[in-house]
């Protein structure tokens, strides 16, 4: 019981503050409630299948297979796969983090995990189509062309910055889950 309480402590604090503010400003409370419901619907739509897919991946795909395709020695194949999987994804960026954690557990190279996150955040195919429709092909394609090398370079810089020791610790933590 105590564990549950601790886990939801922040949520309770935020809720109490919001309700308090809403007592003085009803419009504010109404708007927050409306937007939150909207986002919640999106989340409840996208998040459960992602977690189910992750569960399946965890159970069915062995670490050996996964690291053969995307591990340290996987070279260009791993990079391309990371971009492809990230681009085919659905949902907001926070959906990518649990996927990344399972990738770590499965021995995917750190660089490829970062590339995957970058692709998820910027080069999602369904979003790209939507971007073309809203902002025009010139805008969308230019952004895509800058972003693809960008996420690869950012992944390389991050790998250097963080260092082997910390990467090792992150992998250990993910494996313990």
């Amino acid at each position, binding site marked *: 019981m105590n564990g549950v309480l601790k886990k*939801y402590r922040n949520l309770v604090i*935020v809720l109490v503050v919001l309700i308090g503010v809403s007592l003085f400003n009803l419009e504010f409370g109404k708007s927050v409630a409306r937007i*939150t419901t909207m986002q919640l619907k999106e989340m409840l739509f996208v998040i459960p299948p992602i977690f189910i897919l992750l*569960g399946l991946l965890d159970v069915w795909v062995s670490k050996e297979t996964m690291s053969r395709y995307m591990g340290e020695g996987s070279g260009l194949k791993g990079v391309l796969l990371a971009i492809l999987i990230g681009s085919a994804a659905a949902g907001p960026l*926070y959906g990518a983090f649990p996927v990344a954690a399972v990738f770590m557990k499965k021995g995917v190279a750190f660089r490829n995990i970062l590339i995957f996150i970058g692709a998820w955040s910027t080069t999602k195919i369904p979003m790209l189509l939507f971007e073309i429709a809203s*902002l025009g092909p010139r805008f969308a394609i230019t952004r895509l062309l800058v972003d693809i090398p960008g996420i690869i370079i950012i992944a390389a810089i991050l790998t250097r910055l963080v260092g082997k020791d910390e990467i090792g610790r992150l992998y250990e933590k993910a494996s313990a889950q």
Partner: protein
Amino acid sequence: MNTILYAGTALLLILSFIKDKAKTKKALKKAWKSLENILPQFLVVILLVGVLLTVMDSEMILRIIGADSGWLGVLLAAVVGAITLIPGFVAFPTAAMLLQGGAGYMQIAAFISTLMMVGVVTLPVEISYFGKRLAVYRNLLAFGFSFLVAYVIGYVEALV
């Protein structure tokens, strides 16, 4: 898009179930455990987003990032994009509307880029998976990179 996601997940789940019931059960248990682990943080984030979007409307955003707001406008647009978390299907039409309303391409590009790559409100979630250092570095690098994106898109759009 959601239909594909659901259909795909259902198909794989059924295949998995036919092949091995015990393994499928284990997969579902794992799915629930990891979802339940992160759920409280997700909910906090979603509430904060509700607050942010309530405080900032498109009129206010437009005042900050007009076409002649220059690099300061780009910086502010990048900051707004970094702290807000708007789903793409809302963000792109909003951006198009802001462009028509007089926002500049560079500013909009910075806004879209940080919106997608940088997540200040989702930082706690990111930290819980990746640790503080990596999460902070990633967001900082993505933030800086967005200025390059803004510059290139501003340049390309000005060619026409």
